[in-house]
């Protein structure tokens, strides 16, 4: 593995350009030749072949053989280190039960006891661990130096070091689920993937990387920008600020592929399936979807509506203390409707 000459980021096999600064990687040198006209020939039948746009490769018109050329195929990446599972199956199930029993007033009362666990899958989801040195230029509005407006513009530039930012690359979990899990991992416990499981640890499926390496650059860049936006906050003068913009110049980025443990649970309640996630290291971290008892929601809504009606009625009464006598017609109409009802 060699480094990019411009930004000192590690390059990987098959990279045509640096993942951070897009500096092209030079090709291996070839020997000196003299000029001549050449024909690309089929390796099967020796006929002349041309590049076929449909096949995205040179194809022979006679024997239909397709030649293999250097393709920008994204290699399937897999994790090199993993964070071990610390939560066992029974613990995960108990956490889920505890969570189900604690879903608040709008959840069905029988949820905890009637929910049937459909599946409980240990998953090691894929993520990048990114570290880099960066120069971060920022602008923001803050209350420092404000005159007539409550905001004054500020700008600055700070060197920042990013260490072990977790950037999700998972297909099994969505971005929000990953975001909720990330803060609770103890990354110091990471071990190489090949290392055999420690006693009592579960054999879990290790997810392959869903995001292609070519697309990864944008995902990582976005994650670093988001982190930088919070990291520059101490540099902004004043107590309140808004409109924080950052521009990052990254150098010497290193990326480690890591597998992070989580329990993915599916449970069934009254004919519908719901999904919940239990953290693989901290059983108390549980989140997911749960059913809502609409009858209870309706009852509360009715109660609130009734309360509002009572308040409005009271206010009207206070404003107009002398009520006119109800007309005989009105009484008649009311009694008629009551009969119909």
């Amino acid at each position, binding site marked *: 593995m060699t480094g990019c000459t*411009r*930004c000192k980021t590690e390059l990987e096999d098959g990279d*045509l*350009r640096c993942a*951070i*600064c*897009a*500096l*092209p990687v030079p*090709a291996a040198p*070839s020997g*000196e*030749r*003299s*000029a*001549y*006209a*050449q*024909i*690309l020939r089929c390796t099967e039948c020796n006929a*002349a*072949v*041309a*590049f*076929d*746009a*449909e096949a*995205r*490769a*040179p194809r022979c018109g006679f024997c239909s053989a397709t*030649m293999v*050329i*250097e*393709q*920008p195929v994204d290699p399937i990446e897999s994790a090199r280190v993993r964070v071990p599972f610390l939560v066992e199956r029974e613990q995960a199930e108990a956490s889920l039960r505890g969570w189900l029993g604690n879903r608040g007033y709008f959840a069905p009362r029988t949820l905890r006891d009637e929910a049937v666990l459909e599946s409980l899958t240990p998953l090691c989801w894929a993520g990048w661990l990114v570290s880099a040195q960066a*120069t*971060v*230029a920022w*602008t*923001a*509005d803050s209350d420092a130096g*404000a*005159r*007539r*407006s*409550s*905001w*004054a*513009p*500020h*700008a*600055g*530039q700070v060197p920042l070091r990013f260490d072990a930012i977790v950037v999700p690359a998972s297909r099994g979990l969505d971005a929000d689920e990953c975001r909720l899990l990330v803060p609770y991992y103890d990354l110091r416990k990471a071990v190489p993937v090949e290392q055999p499981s420690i006693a009592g640890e579960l054999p879990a499926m290790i997810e392959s990387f869903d995001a*292609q390496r070519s*697309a990864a650059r944008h995902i990582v860049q976005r994650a670093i920008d988001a982190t930088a936006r919070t990291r520059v906050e101490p540099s902004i003068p004043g107590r309140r600020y808004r*409109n924080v*913009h950052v*521009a*990052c*110049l990254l150098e010497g980025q290193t990326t480690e592929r890591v597998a992070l443990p989580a329990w993915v649970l599916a449970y069934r309640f009254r004919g519908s399936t719901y999904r919940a996630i239990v953290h693989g290291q901290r059983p108390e971290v549980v989140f997911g979807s749960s059913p809502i008892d609409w009858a209870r929601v309706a009852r509360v809504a009715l109660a609130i509506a009734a309360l509002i009606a009572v308040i409005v009625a009271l206010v009207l009464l206070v404003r107009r203390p002398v009520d006119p006598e109800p007309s005989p017609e009105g009484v008649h109409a009311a009694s008629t409707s009551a009969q119909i009802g």
Partner: protein
Amino acid sequence: MVTFSCNQCGAGLAFEGVRTTTCPYCASPNFVERPPSAGQPDPAFAVAFTGDAVWARRRLEGWLGGRTLYADPALRRARLEDLRGIYLPAYLYSAVARSDYTASIGEHYTETETYTTKDAQGNEKTETRTVTRTEYRPLAGQHVGYITDVIVSASAGLDHRTLGAVEPFDLRQLRRFSPALVSGWIHEEFSRDADDCRRASRSEAIDAVGDKLRAFMPGDSYSDLAWRTTVEWESFDPILVPVWVFAVRYRDDRPPLRVVINGQTGAIAGKVPLSWWKITLGIVLLLAVIAAVIFLVTQHRPAP
């Protein structure tokens, strides 16, 4: 003009401004292999074509079909001539850009002001209202970043602006150049001066910094944004990008309409000749409709 003999049948082949040609006698796609020091840059990368001539023609027909409302009616009967799939020479540029900028940042604030008005009886009275005003404050600072994926045309035939109209190319699909990619297609030689292209790339990079700066400004508004950019660590690599070039001859007395299609994404650009009498007719019709509506509204207004 350079002549080489066909690698299949030995016939003399002329290569004029191109590096590939198909032998007229044996239909073999020939490609000029030459030493790296031959004075012409060798492409480092290429973006491959993703569709064939039928695909390109269908894109063109769809595009022309959607543009006949105000176009010259002759376009409907146009002959699609001279369809060519070309690997266009271009340069791929990237750099580190460090900029110093100054701008005037507008911050809103609200003020209560009093004003006098007349009520229904014509009496003057004083009222208050809240107005939003903007306070402008100067801001100076720095901006840093990589400018990547800048592509400028190195073809004398298809200039930078025309190529820009069908950009971007998906550079994630970039491949290292090999003759296999261009075999059977037209590989145009690099015909524009490299220094010229480098200057064009640099100015496009500085424009790109401007776009980034506009999104970087704080405040509710800004004005007088000015910046000075220094570029470091430039990279400048010859590449090939796929384009379909069509010449559409729609009148014998006019030059043909040239349409360019991005050979990878299918984006199309071209300047459709407009028919002035059609536009005039359209405006007259629109005015007639407006006049009719006004007439109807005034007719139906109840008499005072």
